[in-house]
């Protein structure tokens, strides 16, 4: 991939992580539960509307983990004008975790009283390119994890085991076993440890067709647990974020973590 395109992709990625851009980042699978081996297609976009395409979200780092923990095939990864797409092949019975996650760095500084910004994924290189007279230098590390899960046949948990890195969900209730009116129990983890007091925001799909967001939130308890009761069948956008000082580069002041998931709830 040309480096300019890559830079643009990263810029989009980082811009979306900043508070000024309250856009939502999401993956949207065509199916979440299927009964015969097939390809499913996934869209990736950044938008205010759930789930309406606005700007393509880069998917160069997409990783699909198959039912026995192996990497699964991805095809046709393409960046289009308002969305990226890729296809995932479901061959083996069980659950597939589809994740797009990439860390990045955001540099803020002043030169002669003028505010400047830089973005990239190589913190050392960014610091090296900093003008000699830069002052008030702040560096932030950003991790956005976009995830969704799809299943062929009966769900299993191998692909869903937490990696122990960044902000993740431990799915005590399987994400492809969600039904209207039922309650899912999930645990939030930061670097593999239960994350308490984090606010999980949920938005049902189809905001274009109603007057209010109909969003709601739940907060993790001291064991990191949240219970989510699904009001009706449909697709839901989930967002949770936190920040800490556990940066991967000593010059980074803060690490911002975001988990953005899409889950489908079926009628019973």
């Amino acid at each position: 991939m040309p480096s300019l395109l890559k830079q643009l992709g990263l810029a989009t990625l980082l811009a979306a992580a900043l508070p000024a851009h309250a856009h939502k980042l999401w993956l949207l699978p065509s199916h979440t539960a299927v009964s015969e081996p097939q390809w499913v297609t996934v869209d990736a976009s950044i938008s205010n509307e759930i789930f309406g395409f606005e700007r393509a979200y880069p998917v160069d780092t997409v990783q699909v983990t198959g039912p026995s923990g192996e990497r699964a095939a991805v095809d046709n990864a393409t960046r289009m004008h308002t969305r990226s797409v890729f296809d995932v092949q479901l061959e083996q019975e069980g659950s597939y975790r589809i994740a797009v996650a990439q860390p990045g760095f955001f540099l803020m500084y002043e030169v002669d009283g003028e505010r400047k910004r830089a973005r990239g994924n190589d913190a050392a290189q960014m610091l090296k390119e900093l003008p000699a007279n830069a002052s008030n230098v702040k560096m932030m590390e950003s991790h956005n994890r976009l995830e969704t899960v799809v299943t062929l046949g009966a769900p299993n948990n191998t692909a869903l085991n937490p990696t122990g890195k960044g902000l993740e969900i431990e799915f005590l209730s399987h994400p492809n076993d969600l039904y209207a009116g039922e309650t899912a129990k999930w645990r939030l983890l930061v670097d593999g440890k239960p994350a308490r007091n984090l606010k999980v925001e949920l938005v049902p799909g189809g905001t274009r067709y109603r007057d209010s967001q109909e969003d709601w939130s739940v907060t993790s308890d001291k064991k990191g647990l949240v219970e989510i009761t699904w009001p009706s069948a449909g697709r839901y956008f989930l967002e949770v974020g936190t920040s800490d000082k556990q940066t991967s580069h000593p010059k980074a002041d803060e690490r911002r973590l975001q988990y953005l998931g899409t889950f489908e709830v079926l009628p019973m």
Partner: protein
Amino acid sequence: MRVLLTFCLALVASHSLAESFRVEVEVPRLRVAEYHAPYVAFWVENPDRSTILPLGLWYDDQEKWLKDIRQWWRRTGRGQSKPYDGLTGATRPPGNHSIDFAELKALQDLPPGEYELIVEAAREVGGREVLRLPFQWPAEQAQTQQASGDNELGTVTLTITP
């Protein structure tokens, strides 16, 4: 001793708790432009669903649509693969059909208790419907239960003869 034990087990297994477990199903005739015979699944569950017993499936070999028999898929179908458990066969055309599940050993081995027979129909480019017929197992005397669907199923009758 081993011989005796084997003999006792064989005796239990062969002991039938019902002479017949007959389900009559009316597949309604629908006036629609594109008609496909419904996929129909039959299973038994107890109130807390700790027991789920698949009895049979009518489908036309297209696994792609099995997920649309939603409840069956969730309760038992997605954990199975070809050939699907129970008395499984092709879809049935509109009309009255009868099937007797008494020959299934798993049904005869069902522990005593309260159960429901569940009949679920899903039709390609059509709708879905679920009917539940409660029954007591084993039947002390002949039991008959009936339920009627609104769209995808007509009258469904369960008759258990001890």
